[in-house]
């Protein structure tokens, strides 16, 4: 599970508990200007994820870490597909983040509000 928050001009994604371990990352800070949008997307778990390096991938249990697929670098931290949120980025190391959050709709609303110009 990840906790997503807006802190000043940044979007902050913090991994909780053991997910820090699986994802090999405890915190990501992204300038809001580089956040293109957020979407509730349970179905994304069914997509090919590419090559994991580094991180943990136990299909159907946990997808966590950095995945390389078709030239894109995607950060994953998801166990429960129903709670997956996709955050699309620009000009960042990661093309997008796919993270599990407690309340996907609330997170999407928060990101949209913070990034609306």
């Amino acid at each position, binding site marked *: 599970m990840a906790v997503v928050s807006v802190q000043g001009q940044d979007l902050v994604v913090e991994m909780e508990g053991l997910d820090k371990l699986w994802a090999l990352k405890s915190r990501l800070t992204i300038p809001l200007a580089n956040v*293109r*949008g957020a979407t509730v997307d*349970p179905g994304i778990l069914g997509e090919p994820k590419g090559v994991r390096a580094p991180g943990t991938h136990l299909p159907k249990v946990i997808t966590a870490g950095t995945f390389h697929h*078709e030239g894109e670098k995607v950060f994953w931290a998801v166990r429960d597909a129903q709670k997956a949120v996709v955050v*699309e980025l620009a000009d960042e190391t990661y093309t997008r983040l796919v993270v599990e959050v407690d309340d996907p709709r609330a997170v999407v609303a928060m990101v949209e509000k913070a990034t609306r110009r």
Partner: protein
Amino acid sequence: MGRRRSFDEDEVVEAAAKLFARRTYDGVSIDDLVKWVGVHRNSLYGVFGSKRGLYLAALRRHVDREVRPRLALAARPDAVLTWDLLLLAAVDRAPEDSEVAGLVSSVFAELDAATGDPGVTEALLGRWLRGRPSVDVPTEDDALETAPGEEI
């Protein structure tokens, strides 16, 4: 980093508009868009950024291509509106999304200008709502294969 665009962006937006015209925003999943619109998930995110990004592109396309060019026709007596995406946006998304609200408001104002009377606009909107129960709802396949009707 270059983005791969192995699809026609306008076709994707048009197909998405058809889907969003039939269902509420929350009723359309990314799985639905991938399946019916025929766009890869990664491309959808890469080009539009989010579901909202694609929705806004679809709504703007609908307004620019289907609504604005036909505003004058709406002034005719007994005109029947078929702008389902716009009208669904007014009901479903405008209260949630200020950008949608702004676009819908400006189109309604343009409609007032075209009809010359806000009362005519209200009657048009009322007739659209009144006619909903008797609309022949095509199946999903029909809806996405059939071209938009000739009415306004």
